[in-house]
């Protein structure tokens, strides 16, 4: 990571750490906590934490579109679901089931879906984009739901978890702890890649599309191509999240291709903080924790989306930067 030439935190007294150092220290601390966490948490919360990380990855992938390119996708369930079904297909067809093959197949599925969606939807802006991504994700949902012979229809696909294998080095069954570490490694790696991407010249062009699309085009950037790549990239990471979820839960179900998954993803983003990459993970954690808490307080049947939906509306009106943006502003004060 390059140090910004005009680093604001490098003040006169010189004792303060640079921005980059602060970032890496914070990053390592969080990762360290997440590495230790499964060793101290009971089984239920261990699974829960792993799941939050996976939802966080999904949310982060859609943040690339919402927060950086300025396009709201209501179709991330398609990429997530295709990742799930791709992994499921590879695990069911190839024996012995191979983890890396599953990941590759899931990514290929998500990439295919993303290519299809991107090709049509990038012609449109704002609301039109949101609506078309939603409709396209429903196309995938209908296909998966009705093509029973291949996808198992409403019942989905059930398979066994592959071994965690690194060729010639390591080969063992996943325990819930190693699964957590594996997911953590993938999510942390994805975060670093996405952070690098958003800070690269490419990422700058995406942000300039968000700020002023006609001007970006006038400068000479092929806006459509950039949008296409950003949708594809976002779809790939969403597919990766789908693969991880499939591996964790040992099934692929059409429910996850349904619109509600995309809706949740958007909520994670808004609650956590759009355009921050970390924010969506925080949002996913907050959302899932609140849901769990409400279920424990009022029973499983409690419609947790009513209070969370209201909170969501309130946040859009009063706190559009989300939890993280709010915290940042509060800390800087």
């Amino acid at each position, binding site marked *: 990571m390059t140090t910004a030439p005009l680093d604001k935190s490098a003040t006169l007294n010189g004792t303060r750490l640079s921005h980059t150092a602060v970032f890496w220290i914070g990053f390592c601390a969080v990762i360290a906590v997440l590495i230790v966490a499964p060793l101290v948490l009971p089984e239920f919360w261990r699974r829960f934490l792993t799941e939050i990380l996976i939802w966080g990855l999904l949310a982060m992938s859609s943040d690339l579109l919402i927060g950086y390119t*300025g396009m*709201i996708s*209501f179709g991330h369930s398609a990429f997530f679901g295709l990742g799930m079904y791709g992994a499921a297909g590879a695990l069911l067809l190839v024996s012995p089931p191979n983890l890396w093959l599953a990941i590759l197949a899931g990514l290929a599925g998500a990439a295919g879906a993303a290519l299809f969606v991107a090709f*049509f*939807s990038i*012609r*449109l802006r*704002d*609301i*039109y984009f*949101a*609506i*078309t991504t*939603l*409709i*396209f994700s*429903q*196309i995938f949902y*209908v*296909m998966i*739901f*009705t093509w029973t012979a291949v996808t198992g229809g409403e019942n989905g696909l059930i398979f066994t978890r592959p071994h965690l294998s690194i060729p010639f080095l390591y080969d063992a069954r996943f325990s819930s702890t190693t699964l957590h570490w594996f997911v953590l490694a993938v999510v942390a790696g994805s975060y670093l890649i996405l952070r690098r991407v958003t800070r690269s010249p490419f990422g700058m062009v995406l942000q300039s599309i968000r700020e002023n699309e006609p001007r970006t085009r006038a400068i000479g950037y092929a806006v459509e191509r950039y949008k296409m790549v950003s949708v594809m990239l976002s779809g790939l990471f969403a597919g990766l999240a789908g693969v991880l979820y499939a591996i964790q839960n040992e099934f692929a179900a059409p429910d996850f291709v349904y*619109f509600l998954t995309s*809706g949740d993803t*958007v*909520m994670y983003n*808004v609650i956590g903080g759009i355009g921050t990459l970390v924010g969506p993970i925080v949002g996913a954690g907050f959302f899932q924790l609140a849901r769990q808490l409400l279920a424990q307080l009022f029973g499983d049947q409690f*419609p947790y*989306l*009513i209070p*969370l*939906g*209201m909170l*969501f*509306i309130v946040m*859009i*009106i009063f706190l*559009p930067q989300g939890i993280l943006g709010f915290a940042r502003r509060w800390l800087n004060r």
Partner: protein
Amino acid sequence: MDALGQFLHAVPFDLIIIQTVNGIVTGMILALIASGLTLIFGIMDVVNFAHGELFMLGAYIGFVVFVTTGSFWLALIGASLIVAILGAAIQVVALRPLIGRDPLNTILATFGISLVLQNYALWQFGPVVRKIPEPISAEFTLFYLQYPWYRILIAVLSAGIIGGFWLFLKFGKFGVWIRATAQDRVMAQAMGIPVPLVYTGVFAIGAAMAAASGVLFAPMVGVNHTMGLDWVLKAFIVVVVGGMGNFGGSIAAAIFISLLEAYASIWVDPSQAVIVSFVVLILTLLFRPTGLFVASPR
């Protein structure tokens, strides 16, 4: 010639006529929903994600009013009024603060509203399908079917509501305000038109139209809490195919798409017939992104 004869023989003409009637009936309901959606979009620049939920809520409230009073027509009017008030409240509380902000914010807000409404309905009424009986039970013979007159009545009533609304837009005082605001908001305000009131009113009218179509539709299939999403998706497709914010276009598109879906379901499963409307949407986006039913593409 022989192949053509065989082909003609294979086409079930009786089914096609039945499906034409079915398609026009669902098309009119869809047109009623979509015209509310396109009205709200055209005037307020708000894509109302919660429109399907207003439709669903209208059906539920219609059901409740029907159970208490026993009159279908009271249910129709009562549901429309109550949902109109609800719509006005939603607009004032959640959408008015967002005027002048990035339009994406309003999508997100209406999405949140739809979540809340849908889960409220699930919580209040449970996952059981509720049904309002048809107000008239007379039937007529269509080939081998006993076709209910009620379905024809739906189409006529929907056309009546849309027509009445069109007249209101054209000649009513408030209608003129609405059109003026759609044309030039700042100028309309300068001329003394209470623009915030117009916005609230437009949202209420759109909501009432959705609710009315919900009540009209309820006797055909039944009411459940997930019906909103299916219909709002269809309405979105209609609105995009018809040209966003184009009133006549969306009505034509609603009937066009419903007819296509009805014909498609002669040969494939109805749940797969939805794909046809998706294909229409894709083709529209590819070749006429401004909408199929726009008079002159700009």
